[in-house]
């Protein structure tokens, strides 16, 4: 990314990435434009870095879960949809970083690791997905509370809502309730970092 990146360039790149980005397009462009307009506050960039890491973890998990080919057709369909969502989220949050003239992490930058047997059965995949989505949701909720650039908050909230749907779906697949708490807990940046760290080699 360069300092001269424009909305048109971003949209062009989005288009090249396929129709999937249309869903996240508004967040992508607004994140990038806001980030490039002003120097980012310290915590905003830190949260963006962390969320990029979380999205890379989520994408990596879903890609491996799909490749494991142990789930039935319905579950596989949801895994693929979730994978697509996480990729779109990644593009959006990465826009904060690239828009501020920094380079976001990419999949090869972080090596993820999972507990033994994570991809062995449908149940193990669902259990990990539920746990992962809880972490990612908590990270986004924490970021919404922690970032200082107000214009980022709506985009992050949109992503958090999507992660909440993922979390709810996998909770029901485990036999649990679709929803329960009125106020879901936000993770501090430390807590979110530590949670992500647990699955990083």
């Amino acid at each position: 990314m360069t300092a001269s990146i424009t909305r048109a360039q971003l949209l062009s790149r989005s288009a090249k990435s396929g129709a999937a980005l249309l869903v996240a397009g508004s967040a992508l462009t607004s994140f990038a434009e806001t980030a490039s307009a002003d120097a980012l506050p310290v915590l905003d960039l830190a949260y963006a870095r962390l969320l990029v890491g979380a999205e890379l973890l989520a994408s990596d998990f879903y890609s491996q879960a799909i490749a494991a080919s142990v789930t039935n057709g319905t579950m596989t369909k949801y895994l693929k949809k979730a994978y697509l969502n996480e990729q779109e989220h990644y593009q959006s949050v990465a826009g904060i970083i690239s828009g501020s003239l920094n380079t976001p992490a990419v999949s090869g930058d972080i090596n993820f690791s999972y507990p033994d047997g994570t991809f062995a059965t449908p149940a193990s995949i669902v259990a990990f997905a539920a746990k992962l989505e809880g972490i990612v949701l908590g990270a986004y909720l924490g970021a919404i509370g922690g970032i200082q650039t107000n214009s980022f908050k709506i985009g992050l909230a949109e992503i958090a809502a999507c992660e909440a749907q993922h979390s709810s779906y996998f909770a029901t697949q485990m036999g649990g309730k679709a929803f329960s708490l009125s106020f879901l807990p936000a993770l501090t940046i430390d807590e979110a970092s530590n949670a992500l760290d647990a699955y990083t080699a």
Partner: protein
Amino acid sequence: METDSCHATDHAGNSSTKGASLRSSITGGRFVALVCILALCICAGAGGASAKSSRIASGITVFAGSSMTSVLPEIDPTNTYSFGSTGTLSTQIVNGAPADVLMGANTTTCAADYASGVTEKPVNFTRNTLEVVVPKSNPAGISSIYDLIKPGIKIDEAASTVPVGSYTVQVLNQMGINAAVQANVVSQETSDANVVAKVVTGQVDAGFVYLSDYVIDPTHLTLIKVPAWAQPKITYAMCVVTKSPNQAAAQAWVTKILSAGAQAIFVKDGFLPLTAPIPSIAKLAPMKAKAGATLTITGTNLTGTTSVTFQGVPAKFKVVSATKLTVTVPAKAKTGTITVTNPSGTATSATFTIA
């Protein structure tokens, strides 16, 4: 040779020796080895006759990054060591310093020296991680790396011209807090050992060092983990100096460093074992198949494979051996190259055709 060797130590590794001495006085077990190193330098600096009569080293001359001040004499106390910044040591070798082997805290220095004909081909031999250490008393109450952005925290780091300083900047950039942390940096050092010394003595609230620096002095330091997701890939490489008159002994040292015994000492001292080598693909059988078919990939270093993809489409695979994988051609696979990835890197095949 002895005088030149210590000349290098005086300029490149003086602060490292000081830091190591501080640590060895605390940790006991490594004290003898480090005193021997110190004695070598003092004696050589005092005069040739004295140096020769006092010298215990009989091996080769090794120039090494200061993070290896403790571990290398453990592996072989008979060598002559000069510890310092990898880049500085390399410059000294380029300028004719009589080293037999350069052991760096990165892979780039040896690679550059090899490219310019100064050394033989580099060999990776260990890894490390970057961490934050604070004094045991922790007067600033630091419990997380994110605390380092708070105003008023006094931070020490190595200069970005030395490997540990370069890694520090990489970590902070990866976490998005570099600018804020740099605002709290009160000193920049020429080595990790100097950072350790300032943290132990309470001159600063926190410092960036290698994990191995903490492991050799856990009694006076508290470790604040740098998250794995932000860690740079810190790999150490060594290379035999082309002009070394002790080629056989130098090559033997390289072999010794890669031995199980030496590697165990590295790990004991907080270094990390080498990861699996990058995979390679020699053959696909068949070269053309339908989705759902089983494909055999032969190559090398396939044991730690983490993913196989067909033009980005993940595939189900099974590791048969270090040289063989069986792969199910995924439903949405397209004609093109296949990639095999392990934690060290990715191999790309010739074109595979979907029937």
